[in-house]
Each structure stands twice: as C-alpha cells, then as structure tokens.
C-alpha cells in the first residue's frame, strides 16, 4: 500500500548561513573604506584633531579598553532595559488599540505621526524630570523611541488577518481571545520584529544622545561629550566606535531572537 503512495518531498530550505552570508561583502567594503581613510589622513597630512587616522584610533581603543568597557556598561544597561520595556509596552498598547477595530486606524496614524518626531530631542526635558545623572531619564527617552515603531508594526500586524483564517476561526466558533492568541498575535510577530529592529537602533541613539546632556559619570555618551570638549578626538572616535559596536550587537541579538520566535519566516526567506 505504501508502495502506491506517491513519493513527496518537502522543499529543502537552506538554514543558518542566511545571517552571515550578506556580512562578508559588507566586511570587505568596511576594510576598503578604513584603508582609504588611513591613506587620506597620511597622504593628505590631515591634522589629528580634525580627523585621526584609523590606526591612531585603534591604538586608543586598545590602550583605553578598560575605560571604554566600563563606559559601555551603564549605556548598554539603559539600552537593554529600554528595548525590553519598549517591547512590552508596545505590544500591550497594540493589543489594546487593535481591540477597537473602528478607531485603530486613526490611532495608528497618530502614533506613526508621533514616530516622525525626533523623540531624542526630549532628552533634556526627561533629564530635568528624572534627574540628569540617573539612568532612569535615559531609559525613559529610549523606551519611548522603541515603543513607537513597535506599536506601529505590531498594530498593523494585528489588524491584518487573512480572510480565510478569520473565516476558519469563525467556523469553529472561536472566541475573540482565541482569535487573538492563535491568529492575530502569531501573525503579527513578523511585523513586531520589523518595528523592533527600527526601535533597537533608535534606542542606542536615544541613550547616547541623552547622555550628552549629562549621565552617570562614566557612560559612553558622557565620554564622547567630555573628550570632544577637551579636543581629545582620538578618544572621542574610540568611544563612538564602542557605541557602534553596541548598536551592532543589539541588532544581532534582535535578529537571533527573531529567528527563534518566528521560525516560519526564516523558512520562507531561506
């Protein structure tokens, strides 16, 4: 009997290499740009206070590594707290917004509009509210920066339900809660992560910029502001480099969590 059963094979999906493959050409381009930068500075005789050579910056990174690491800690803490809080708040807000289907589109448009405003510009105000040296003001600004794109993405995802899925759930007399849990929320996950990726980038910017206006004594943003004020630009560049690494690491972390949470998406993008 099984000999008669038609042989069918699942489509084979490439796994794992999807994340790293596009990085190779990017890394190559990065190296080329660094070499060009080095040449411009040396050949052009650019003054170090205007633009230090990558080699000079690398030297500072190595010698100041302990300082940079300890500066990265409060900054990273604020960013991670903000991403977590922003995601939780964003998803909760989205569920509430999506419950009122009639109003949801209007509210969504308003939130998207708010997202066009530079939230980070609120940093001095939040510093005044929560105290400029506390981590709370940084977390607050960054949380707001994360929440908005997460709400926009997630709410759109929650509102977009395929007619066949809706009809199927209706046919088995599923409750609104069951529709939310089994269809709307899982269906919204890809859009949630689209929002979260934008939000994570904004969170790093928000924390660093609000640290410019004062922060826990040794945060990365404070270091950048102080060394720039003292014209120690090689140190400033080293700190900017550390901040970039922080952003990159966060982006990678979000991508890994997305792979785990939305396995069917990677199955189609291959």
């Amino acid at each position, binding site marked *: 009997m099984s000999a*008669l*059963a*038609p042989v*069918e094979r*699942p*489509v084979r*999906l490439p796994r794992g290499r999807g994340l790293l493959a596009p990085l190779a050409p990017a890394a190559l381009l990065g190296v080329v740009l660094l070499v060009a930068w080095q040449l411009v500075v040396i050949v052009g005789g650019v003054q170090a206070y205007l633009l230090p050579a990558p080699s000079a910056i690398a030297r500072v990174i190595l010698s100041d590594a302990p300082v940079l690491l300890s500066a990265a800690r409060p900054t990273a803490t604020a960013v991670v707290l903000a991403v977590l809080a922003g995601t939780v708040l964003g998803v909760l807000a989205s569920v509430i917004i999506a419950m009122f289907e009639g109003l949801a589109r209007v509210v969504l448009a308003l939130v998207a509009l708010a997202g066009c405003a530079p939230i980070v510009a609120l940093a001095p105000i939040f510093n005044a509210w929560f105290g400029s040296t506390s981590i709370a003001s940084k977390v607050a600004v960054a949380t707001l920066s994360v929440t908005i794109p997460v709400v926009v993405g997630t709410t759109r995802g929650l509102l977009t339900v*395929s007619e*066949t*899925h809706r*009809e*199927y*759930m*209706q*046919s*088995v*007399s*599923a409750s609104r809660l*069951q529709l939310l849990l*089994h*269809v709307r929320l*899982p*269906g919204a*996950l890809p859009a949630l992560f689209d929002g979260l990726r934008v939000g994570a980038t904004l969170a790093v910017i928000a924390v660093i910029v609000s640290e410019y206006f004062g922060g826990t004594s040794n945060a990365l943003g404070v270091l950048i502001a102080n060394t720039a004020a003292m014209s120690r630009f090689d140190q400033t560049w080293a700190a900017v480099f550390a901040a970039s690494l922080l952003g990159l690491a966060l982006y990678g972390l979000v991508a890994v969590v997305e792979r785990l949470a*939305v*396995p*069917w998406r990677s*199955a*189609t993008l291959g």
Partner: protein
Amino acid sequence: MSTSTASTSTSTAIHLAGISKTFSTSSGDVVALDDIDLDIPQGAFVSLLGPSGCGKSTLLRVIGDLVTPTAGTVQVAGTSAAEARRTRQYGMAFQAPGLMDWRTVRRNVELPLQVQGVGRAERRQRADEMLELVKLTQFADHRPRQLSGGMQQRVAIARALAMQPRVLLMDEPLGALDEMNREHLQRELLRIWRATGTTVVFVTHSIPEAVFLSTEVVVMSPRPGRIASRIPVDLPYPRTDETRLTDEFQAAERHVRERLHAVLEPSTAGL
C-alpha cells in the same frame, strides 16, 4: 416538504427555505442566490455542481452561518445555523487551504480541538490519526509552506475532520490534488462518511467525482444562483474503483452531464 431524494433517512439535517443572498458592491448589486429551497436528509452526501460564479461557495457559507442570507431561513439539525455553529457542529474545508504558517502541520490539525478545549495528549493523538488518514504522517512537523498545494489541501481536510463534525462542508477540497491522491481521498471520504453518519455538503467541478461520492447531485445555474435540478444517485455503497467502470455509473455520469449542459447553454446563448 417531502423531497424526491433516494435517501432512506427520515430526519432532515439541513433545511433551507427561500434563501436569497444579494451582495452590494461598488459596481452594483450581485444576486448570488435567488430563492433556494433545499432539504438535505440526515447522513446524506450532497454535491453542489455548477458553473463558476453560480453561488456554490455562497450557499455553503450560508449553511455554515458564515454568510447571513438576505432572505430565507436555515435550519441545521432542528436548530438555527448560528446555534449549530456555536455548538461546533461544522467541519469546514474551504477553497483555499488557509493553514497557519506559525503552526506545524500537526498543530494546524490540532487547532479546532484546542479551540474546543480538548486536552493536549488527546489532541495530539487525534491529529496524528487524521494525518495518517490523509497520508501525511511524515510531514507532521513541517511548516505548511514547505508542502505542495495539494498536500496543504489534505491538511485542511484533516483539520476539518478532526472535530468529528455532524455536518461537513467542503468547498472543492480535492481540486488541487493529483488523480491518484484525489481518488484515494474520495475513497477515504466515503469510508469516514459511512462510518460516522456525517452529513456532507460537497462543492466540486468534477462530474465523475460528484457521481462517485454522492447520494444526490444538486446542479445550480448562474445569475441568479438557483437550483436547476436535483439528481439522486442510486448506486449502492460501498463504492469502489470497480464502481467507476459499471454501466450504471457511466449512465449516471451522462445524466448529470446533460443537466449541467442544459444549465450552461441558455447563459452562453444569452451572451
């Protein structure tokens, strides 16, 4: 209210009286169904046959309480269609498989049971039984998108059967299958139907399929959707592949084909 079906069943499973459905669209009203009366006896296997756009899917949705008719009444097992849906009497498979990407094949089949509150272990066992039936056991842990269209449709059938529904509403569920799987599932459908006593309403475009499966074939005519003729199929069950070769089968097929062509000609002549 008595009808001329060949069924020996006494009670009426589905009772449609004066059903009309008009869709209002931006380009005017569309009369999808016009004054349809139909009684389907308990345990019948009724196929709806007719040209594209004649309202077969709409009629199925009206029975399943997914579309509210503009006029007329629907009764299912003595209650309203809404009550039947609320008490989960229906198993439905639509024209599109409509599986959920975020669930594995097995968890898709489990979904109606989960909605019903069936426990985890029993859910899994029933889903595995259904997957066995549609010959997809080895794909239980795959994602729907990793399956072909025909395989997805089989998962949708397994999902519809999982609740062991009293009324099975199927909209061209075998349309996307190859001939071999199609005939296999026709036999399985008949077996399940006979074992469970489920009432089946089945939309198809295939005349041989309608004849092979049904106790009665209902031919619909388009614009507006009406019932053109009802043809009892008096072939004895169990029907097997040999049945398809008999003179009686081919005579029934011919008969249905003539009725279908009678429906098609006036509309094409009118164009």
